[in-house]
């Protein structure tokens, strides 16, 4: 009964404060909006992509017109590449290099003497490509010239094998459909998009951050010296503690549900075919993050310390599980396996992809084990340290 009173009071107190309302409704919505809006562009990356034109300095080392490369000249002025590069003829290599350094050009190509004749006679020829200041410009221009070279390469190979007349007879095959399609990782059900990955990883990060609620709840009573007064009542310490944690847990669950439902409705994020299992995993995550924060609170004297530790651990674990920036594959499955996020993220993604229950079970077991250890830790330290002023 006491637990119930304390829990409802905790709930009421949190719900009544304006900050809390902000936190509960605004934070999820803002996060979802940002995720949805910023990553929607990523999902449609094959579609209408606006690439900045790269200014390419072209240095033809051959002095006179006949030795200059007509093939390259025709290529850089063709329609198919004019969206990607704009060519500039430059006299010397030095000029091109200084242009690259000042940012006048984004990329430079040095054409050797007799490039065309070498190619036609079946010999070898190399273009020198000099990388510029901008990473994406380098990639764009590099791809353009790689395609040019590979086309020459295949044509030369065809001419050498079939004889030069084969080329003139060849009709350029029109590609009706893209040569590469994006596979569906799914085992039936809806198509998986990459934004689902980030939605899942951000949900987990948010749930970890909710551990801050625990620290604020536990320390507010101490800091306001109301803990003394509560202890003068016929309430057991454990009842107070459990009640408070239940209250915080309910709030976090509401937030979690809000995120899942809103992302689904507003941005069409599909959370998988096993709602009950998803709820179970979210619960495990909430338990893990709360028990961890409780442990931190018990071991730290001030709320600033506790907040700091929770912050660091949250960012660290999200990062190590590969939820933010891409990490080398070797890291994700070795160091990442020590984070809660890793197991949760994998499980949620498998649910999104309709994997069989057998594949999710190990994650469930690992998470349950982690939660048990953490709960055990909390019970043990509570006995030792308790919740006093």
């Amino acid at each position, binding site marked *: 009964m006491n637990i119930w009173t304390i829990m409802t009071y905790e709930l009421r*107190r949190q719900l009544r404060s304006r*900050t809390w309302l902000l*936190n509960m409704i605004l*934070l999820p919505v*803002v996060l979802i909006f*940002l995720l949805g*809006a*910023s*990553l*929607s*562009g*990523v999902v449609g*990356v094959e579609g209408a992509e606006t690439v900045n034109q790269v200014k390419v300095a072209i240095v033809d080392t051959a002095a006179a017109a006949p030795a200059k490369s007509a093939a390259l000249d025709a290529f850089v002025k063709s329609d198919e590449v004019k969206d990607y590069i704009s060519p500039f003829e430059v006299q010397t290599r030095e000029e091109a290099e200084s242009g690259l*350094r000042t940012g006048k050009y984004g990329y430079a190509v040095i054409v050797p003497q007799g490039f065309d004749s070498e*190619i036609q006679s079946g*010999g070898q020829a*190399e273009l020198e*490509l000099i*990388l510029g*200041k*901008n*990473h994406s410009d380098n990639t764009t221009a590099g791809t353009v*010239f790689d*395609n040019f*070279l590979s*086309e020459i*390469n295949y044509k030369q*190979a*065809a001419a050498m*094998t*079939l004889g030069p007349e084969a080329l003139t007879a*060849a009709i*350029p*095959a029109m*590609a009706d*459909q893209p*040569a*590469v*399609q994006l*596979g569906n*990782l799914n085992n039936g059900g809806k198509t998986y998009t*990459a934004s689902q990955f980030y939605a899942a990883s951000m949900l987990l*990060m948010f749930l970890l951050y909710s551990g*801050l609620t625990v620290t*604020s709840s536990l*320390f507010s009573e101490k*800091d306001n010296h109301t803990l003394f007064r509560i202890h003068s009542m016929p309430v057991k310490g454990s009842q107070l503690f459990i009640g408070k944690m239940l209250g915080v847990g309910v709030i976090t669950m509401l937030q979690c549900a809000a995120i899942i439902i809103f992302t689904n409705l507003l941005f069409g994020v599909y959370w998988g075919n096993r709602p009950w299992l998803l709820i179970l995993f979210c619960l495990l995550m909430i338990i893990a993050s709360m028990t961890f924060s409780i442990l931190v609170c018990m071991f730290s004297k001030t*709320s*600033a*310390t506790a907040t*700091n530790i929770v*912050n660091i651990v949250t*960012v660290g674990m999200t990062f190590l599980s590969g939820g*933010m*920036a*891409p*990490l*080398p*594959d070797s890291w994700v499955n070795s160091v990442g396996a020590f984070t809660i996020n890793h197991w949760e993220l994998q499980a949620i993604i498998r649910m999104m*992809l309709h994997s069989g229950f057998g594949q999710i079970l190990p994650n469930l077991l690992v998470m349950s084990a982690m939660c048990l250890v953490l709960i055990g830790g909390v019970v043990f330290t509570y006995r030792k340290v308790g919740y006093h002023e």
Partner: protein
Amino acid sequence: MSNIWTIGWNMVKRTIGSRKGLMLYIVLPGIVVAGIISITGGIDNSSKATLLYTNLDNGAGGRHLLAELRSSGDYELAESPGEQEMKESVIGQDGIAGLLIPRDYTAQLLEGKQPQLTVYELKITEDSVLLKMKAAAIARQMLVTAATVKESGTGDPLGQFAAILQQAERHNAGSVRTDYDLYPRQTLGVITGMTLMFLMGLVTSAVNQVIDDRKGRTMMRMYSAPVRAYEIALGNFFGSFLVGIIQIAVVLVLGKWVLRYDYEIPMYLYFLVLAAFMLVSMGIAGTVAGLIRNPRNAGMLNALILTPTCMLGGCFWPLSIMPEYMQKAANFTPQKWAIQAVDIAATGGGWNELWLPFAVLGLMAAILLALGSATLRPNEAGISA
């Protein structure tokens, strides 16, 4: 002046004077940021991205595609026995992407059909986008070659096709890439982003101390001493700034001289960028703390600002992948300007370009700090809910 110094110094001593404080505010952040640096910095020079593949084709086409991808030197190829196993490995993040070459790929090409390769990816990364582009380019060339072979119509098409591809693998027309290291490394953005996010979180704790002072009525007592309100405000500001400067310095020294990460920009510039950014975050934290009447919620609300602005400001992913209007919105976050300043400096830009991000950061800091000190009202005791 001496009053300001006393208050500021006291703040420094309170935060990092004890062994615990030193661990928590100096050593721990240093280790975390150093860890981030060593992990992401390692991407640059160490392992290639792993590409999983399943080749169901037994002709020259599939073999050629894999040979070309391998010779590009960007991927470590790993074979999966079947499509289902490959999907499972992709989900398990064993590689950046999975490539499926369908059954009878070569035969279909030579029949004039357009068979499709399939790429599986768990999350979109630059690597996986590049892989798709590369595979598509090779496949298109093979399509054209197959059409040429079919058109010439003499002899054994399979043999000719294989011979042409073999010849093409010699790369008679090739390229050498000359790299003067003019561009900033990809990881620099990630490292800067993470460092910024981290700094912002740390600043919160400094402001929390001011709130603690207010709540513990210590402020009231301070007023009974011969100090003025502005001296207290300046002293607190000075103290938090000093702590932040020490944190930045430790993080940078660790990264530069212990881990030997090459920041590619002069250290003093990086330091300046971080310091300017820290001023802005102090302003944000102060303003928020002032607006929130219940001091305990201030920390939580900072999380409300920290994560979204970091997302929007490009700490987690490059700004260029976001839609246009989001990039415009990003202009309002200090992170964007700090990252831009680092980018400009890394590409060798001088102060003629650098002044803009610094000016924006300075302006943000000035406005927010003014707002913060106006709303923080240190002389009022906090009302706790």
